[in-house]
């Protein structure tokens, strides 16, 4: 082949290769997803990829030939760029604030490298750009979140410390509460009285003493209502008792059998002034009751035994005083009269004691009659007229302003109660004073009162005035012969009629004793 032909053929082949290469490069510029550009050594844009054009918003023809400043929003990003890139011969990575068409700033990560020819001369630069807007936004959000997280961490740390402190306090409180609980449990367990705790109408606790009282186990009782317990034979009577009484109880007696009596009290448990449950206290009063009974029986026996000889003495003395046994001298008569009075007092005491034993034995019979309280009061007051006169005391019966409604009473017993009160008034009033007996009333009750202007009742002794054998210290000084049983008997009689008894007094100025009895609502039916 001639030389000329060879070179012609060779050139044609090379041209074809270059064309293929150019097409290949053009396709790459179109398809490559990275924003790339080539600039002249003075940073004039010569070639741009499709992604570059899309990123900055320029058409290829529009941006080609433009200085690179067109896409850099800050001059300082370009400062000394050529020195940094050439003759470094390495890829330089840096961040810039890019500028798209229209001026929109875009944070960008830039990689750039200088290209040189075979002689080492700088011929162009290649730049690639990555839009880091999203990354920066995410980073910003991330930083905010991290800062937020740090704030929360600090708060949580504070909360944790606070919680630990609280936990420590709670633990201390728990230990203290456990100690207290153990202490309480020990008290409850070893408490001689029976204790039951009711919550939400169910028994939540029963101590060993209460279990022993009813011969029941904890399992048989705890978690059950009172109504449910009515079906359990061992504790049936107690359950019925509670159901029957309903409201709060204070020292009510519950005889479980003849020799076993419990005194039952209930106390409401409150939380924020709201009742949350009930504590039931069971006190075994069997022994006290037995002793009391024995005592009563003894007194009753003694009184009965004493009354017969005292009556015999009374009649013997009477016969002597009346001269049935022959005449006696005046001084003998005086002596016998004193003996007679003493015997009378002894008989009265014995009668009082017998009344008391009857009351305490529950044998104090109640024979109800519907009557006017005023009539009974008049009868009793009249019976004291002579005695009052003898003491130069004006005994006045003050009538009620209106007609009192009838009461249903055991007349004999009410008379006794009135006698005891009037007797005291006359006994402890000075000569020339007045004792006023009066009756009053309303729709619900009739009230009897006795007002004197006697010695009155010392303040510190008022709570004991209705106790058995109690006598006021000032009364003892005046009269040594009272038994201290009159008011006790009166109180028992009145309360047996569902009435109330009370007094008002000022020491040295006298006292007024009252008792009230409920109006009869049976319309006379007995």
């Amino acid at each position, binding site marked *: 082949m001639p030389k000329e032909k060879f070179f012609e053929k060779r050139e044609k082949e090379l*041209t*074809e290769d*270059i*064309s293929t290469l*150019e097409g290949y490069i053009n396709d790459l510029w179109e398809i490559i997803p990275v924003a790339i550009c*080539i600039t*002249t*050594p*003075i940073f*004039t844009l*010569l*070639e741009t990829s499709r992604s570059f054009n899309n990123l900055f918003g320029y058409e*290829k*023809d529009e941006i*080609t*030939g433009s*200085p690179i*400043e067109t896409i850099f929003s800050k001059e300082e990003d370009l400062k000394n760029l050529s020195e940094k890139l050439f003759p470094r011969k390495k890829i330089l990575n840096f961040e810039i604030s890019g500028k798209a068409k229209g001026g929109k700033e875009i944070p960008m990560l830039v990689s750039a490298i200088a290209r040189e*020819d075979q002689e080492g*001369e*700088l*011929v*162009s630069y290649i730049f690639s750009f990555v839009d880091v807007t999203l990354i920066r936004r995410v980073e910003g959000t991330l930083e905010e979140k991290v800062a937020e997280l740090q704030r929360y961490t600090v708060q949580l740390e504070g909360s944790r410390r606070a919680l630990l402190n609280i936990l420590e306090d709670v633990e201390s409180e728990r230990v203290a509460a456990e100690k207290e609980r153990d202490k309480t449990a020990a008290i409850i367990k070893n408490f001689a009285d029976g204790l039951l705790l009711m919550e939400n109408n169910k028994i939540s606790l029963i101590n060993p003493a209460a279990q022993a009282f009813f011969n029941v186990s904890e399992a048989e009782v705890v978690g059950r209502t009172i109504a449910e317990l009515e079906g359990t034979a061992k504790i049936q009577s107690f359950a019925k008792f509670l159901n029957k009484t309903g409201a709060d109880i204070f020292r009510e007696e519950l005889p479980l059998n003849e020799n076993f009596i419990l005194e039952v009290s209930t106390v409401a448990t409150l939380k924020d002034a709201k009742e949350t449950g009930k504590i039931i206290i069971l006190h075994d009063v069997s022994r006290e009751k037995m002793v009391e009974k024995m005592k009563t029986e003894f007194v009753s026996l003694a009184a009965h035994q004493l009354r017969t000889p005292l009556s015999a003495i009374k009649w013997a003395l009477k016969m002597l005083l009346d001269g049935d046994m022959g005449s006696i001298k005046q001084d003998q008569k005086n002596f016998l009269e004193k003996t007679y009075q003493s015997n009378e007092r002894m008989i009265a005491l014995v009668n009082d004691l017998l009344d008391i034993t009857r009351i305490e034995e529950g044998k104090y019979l109640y024979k109800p009659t519907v009557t006017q309280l005023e009539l009974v009061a008049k009868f009793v007051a009249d019976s004291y007229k002579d005695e009052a006169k003898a003491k130069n005391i004006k005994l006045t019966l003050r009538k009620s302003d209106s007609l009192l409604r009838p009461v249903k009473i055991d007349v004999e017993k009410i008379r006794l109660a009135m006698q005891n009160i009037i007797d005291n008034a006359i006994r402890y009033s000075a000569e020339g004073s007045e004792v006023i007996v009066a009756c009053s009333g309303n729709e619900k009750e009739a009230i009897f009162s006795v007002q004197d202007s006697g010695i009155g009742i010392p303040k510190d002794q008022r709570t004991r005035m209705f106790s058995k054998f109690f006598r006021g210290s000032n009364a003892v000084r005046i009269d040594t012969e009272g038994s201290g049983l009159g008011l006790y008997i009166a109180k028992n009689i009145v309360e047996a009629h569902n009435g109330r008894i009370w007094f008002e007094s000022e020491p040295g100025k006298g006292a007024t004793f009252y008792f009230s009895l409920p109006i009869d609502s049976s319309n006379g039916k007995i």
Partner: protein
Amino acid sequence: MEKNEIEEILKKQGDARGAVFHTDLNYVLQKTASEDSVAKIEEKLKEWGVNLVYRKVEPMSWYPVAWRTLSLLAIQEVLGWDDEEIIKMGRNAPRVSVIVKLFFKLFPDIGKFARQIPKYWTKHYTCGTLKVVELDKDNKQLILRLENFAFHPILCKYLKGYFETATKLTRPKDSIVTCEEIQCTFKDSTPYEVYQIKWTK
């Protein structure tokens, strides 16, 4: 264009890289955004005996410089463009020319830049010689002489714009570059054209 005028051009020898037709197509589409315009230009060329389809042109293959000349003339005639628009076409060409991108080293040093100009011309054309007659760095002036390239005055306009942009690509952004044809075969009956390129920075 007169038939004999066209024939006269077609008679002239010498080839140019197909890339020049690509730059023509690029500018026409930039300005008209119309494929119809391209078709009309191709029709005009066909009428003149040049069977050229712009998109089928291989950028690195050789085509007659006469075709290249007639391409410019057809564009001017079909689109009714004046000489100023042809200068602008020349200005646009280096920006989009694959030849520039592949072979032209746009050194910021004007001396280095000037030295490669003659060689660069031969990568573009098989006819004509482009010489650097004078490089005056102090006065910021470069004189180029293009010999044996008398195809048609339209190429003078085109090359004026081309040289201007090619030089501009090597200068700082705020440098003002101008190019003037100070001697022309068609005006001054010289066997060459002389171009004076000036810049401010």
